[in-house]
């Protein structure tokens, strides 16, 4: 890294403000110089490529249209270590899986900017004849070669790269013709890093969001998306929604206008439907309060993100229910898993099956809405009462600057995330499932929830402890991590069997 690059980064004061154009140009130059394929990036050429794509291959347009038409689109995850394997995968997901949105997941070396190791992984994969990487090394292949992926399919494509360091991958991805990009500063830093500070993670995504806004200036409506799943481990809706609101405010600050919000399913039909609606409403509420009234924020529902059962038949129920929950909740898209989830990265065929099962489930439940159910209304009110005091406190701690407020709130434990590997969080909040199948907060840590609200959570969790005949303690949370992956003989045995 050159001294020049250090200084552009140093001159960039940390705040929620939009990065000035000239400073951003410097940041970009430094960034693109970090790996040879960076030199292939040309935003004007890329913008022209995007605009020449048919609308149905542009995710920004597709998400807006799906929302208008009340559709629930399907999208899998998936990435393999070589271009050839990735081409085959994407074609399969497009055709056999009938995916509406086709993904490219990057490998973990790429996510950690360890491109040299990724290079070795490509070679190993070619030698072994199977993927030794857990995703597609996009930076190593570079935008020109990667564009072949876009050309191979007849759907819009999205980059999935779980990392706090997306600067170069996003440059390559957008330049290659990907019209969607998943990831955000708060969510991914807390789910994917140990030492990285929240500030550093937010900065990196401010870069990415500023880049998306640059395309927007050039007339390309890219779809940016926030990954609300976090650690995927029993994250209650309020915490996922808080992350969505914060990351959406940060993105809007950089000029993003097409920003999806993801929510991992809790697997409770009512809680998930409530969460999907509350997420969009609360995000819009805080965007409006911050002066943004033109940000499109569709919600994507994610198939169960916690541990899966080691039984294909059980997993089929999770896959199908994942479609049901998304459709009933009115999500604009759903991200799918497969029956291989507990074992490893799915084959293209298993992935395609997961898509089709989900699609059928969506078809079956497409008419169902629960908004008028009293229980729904109770939970909708509850989740809003959960989110607002904390979100208001975050903004207050930053004196109105959400970037600064978020860093301080994480340090203080005001904003917290369960089961995170990141050292810059308290990681004291602890969720558990209650007697009625809702995810609740067992231990709020230092998060300033309303006492009344917490009383509801505690009451429900005590009901469960009582029903299960176990103490009201931390084990409620640990057993909730395993729950969904338990064999059926533990979950619902034949009740009256002989001894």
């Amino acid at each position, binding site marked *: 890294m050159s001294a020049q690059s250090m200084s552009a980064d140093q001159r960039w004061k940390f705040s929620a403000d939009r990065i000035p154009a000239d400073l951003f140009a410097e940041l970009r130059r430094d960034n693109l110089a970090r790996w040879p394929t960076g030199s292939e990036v040309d935003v004007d050429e890329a913008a022209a490529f995007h605009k020449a794509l048919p609308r149905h291959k542009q995710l920004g347009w597709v998400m807006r249209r799906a929302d208008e038409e009340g559709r629930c689109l399907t999208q899998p995850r998936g990435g393999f270590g070589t271009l050839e394997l990735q081409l085959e995968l994407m074609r399969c997901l497009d055709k056999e899986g009938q995916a509406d949105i086709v993904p490219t997941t990057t490998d973990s070396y790429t996510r950690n900017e360890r491109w040299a190791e990724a290079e*070795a992984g490509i070679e190993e994969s070619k030698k072994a004849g199977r993927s030794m990487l857990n995703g597609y090394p996009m930076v190593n292949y570079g935008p020109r070669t990667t564009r072949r992926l876009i050309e191979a399919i007849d759907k819009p494509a999205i980059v999935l790269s779980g990392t706090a360091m997306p600067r170069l991958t996003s440059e390559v991805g957008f330049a290659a013709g990907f019209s969607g990009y998943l990831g955000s500063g708060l969510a991914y830093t807390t789910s994917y890093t140990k030492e990285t500070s929240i500030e550093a993670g937010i900065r990196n995504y401010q870069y990415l969001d500023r880049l998306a806004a640059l395309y927007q200036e050039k007339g390309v409506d890219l779809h940016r998306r926030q990954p609300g799943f976090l650690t995927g481990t029993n994250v209650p809706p309020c915490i996922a929604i808080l992350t969505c609101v914060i990351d959406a405010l940060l993105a809007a600050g950089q000029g993003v206008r097409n920003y999806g919000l993801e929510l991992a399913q809790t697997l409770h039909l009512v809680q998930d439907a409530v969460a999907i609606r509350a997420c969009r409403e609360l995000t819009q509420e805080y965007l409006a309060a911050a002066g943004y009234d033109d940000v499109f924020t569709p919600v994507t529902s994610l198939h169960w993100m916690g541990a899966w059962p080691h039984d294909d038949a059980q997993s089929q129920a999770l896959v199908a229910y994942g479609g049901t929950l998304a459709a009933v909740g009115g999500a604009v898209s759903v991200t799918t898993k497969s029956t291989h989830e507990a074992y490893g990265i799915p084959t293209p065929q298993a992935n395609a099956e997961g898509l089709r099962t989900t699609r059928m489930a969506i078809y079956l439940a497409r008419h169902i809405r629960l908004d008028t159910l009293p229980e729904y209304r109770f939970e909708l009110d509850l989740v809003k009462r959960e989110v607002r005091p904390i979100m208001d406190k975050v903004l207050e701690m930053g004196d109105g600057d959400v970037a600064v407020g978020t860093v301080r709130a994480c340090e203080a434990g005001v904003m917290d995330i369960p089961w995170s590997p990141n050292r810059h969080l308290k990681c004291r909040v602890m969720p558990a499932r209650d007697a009625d199948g809702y995810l609740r907060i067992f231990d709020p840590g230092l998060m300033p929830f309303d006492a009344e609200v917490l009383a509801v959570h505690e009451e429900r969790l005590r009901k469960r402890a009582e029903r299960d005949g176990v103490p009201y303690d931390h084990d409620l949370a*640990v057993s909730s991590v395993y729950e969904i992956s338990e064999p059926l003989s533990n979950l619902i045995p034949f009740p009256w069997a002989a001894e």
Partner: protein
Amino acid sequence: MTKAQATPGYDRSAKTLVTGVIGADTHIVGNRILSMALEKEGFKIVTLGALTPADEFVKAAIETAADGIMVSSLYGQGELDCRGFRDLCVEAGLEDILIYVGGNLVVGRQDWADVERRFLDMGFDRAFPPGTRTDDVVRALDADFAERERRSAKAS
């Protein structure tokens, strides 16, 4: 959950175990639950957390005079990350340290017997398939440590 054996035939509190998730892997949940469970069962635990390079395991094991290393790998690239792990230990003078590996060790759904053999060939004492519960790990540790005590009792 069935409880692990109460009287393992050796002193668990005299055994120190280093735990962590190897490589660029952030899957901390299972490793954390495992660490908590081992601690509860009486072992001394040194937790390195997620995203731990191979050499940090070895460094921590030397510093704490550990009796075993518990390597988690979930994200699929464990096969690359774990190569040469035993050699690193040996080079550092930890010839005999017990090393276990567990999680989703390879990319995709592969035959477990095959995967296990690959990791044993790399020098791990045991490898554990996805879905392993903490009780089974405790049982394995008990068996291996008790066996070692017997062996060293005989030797001396």
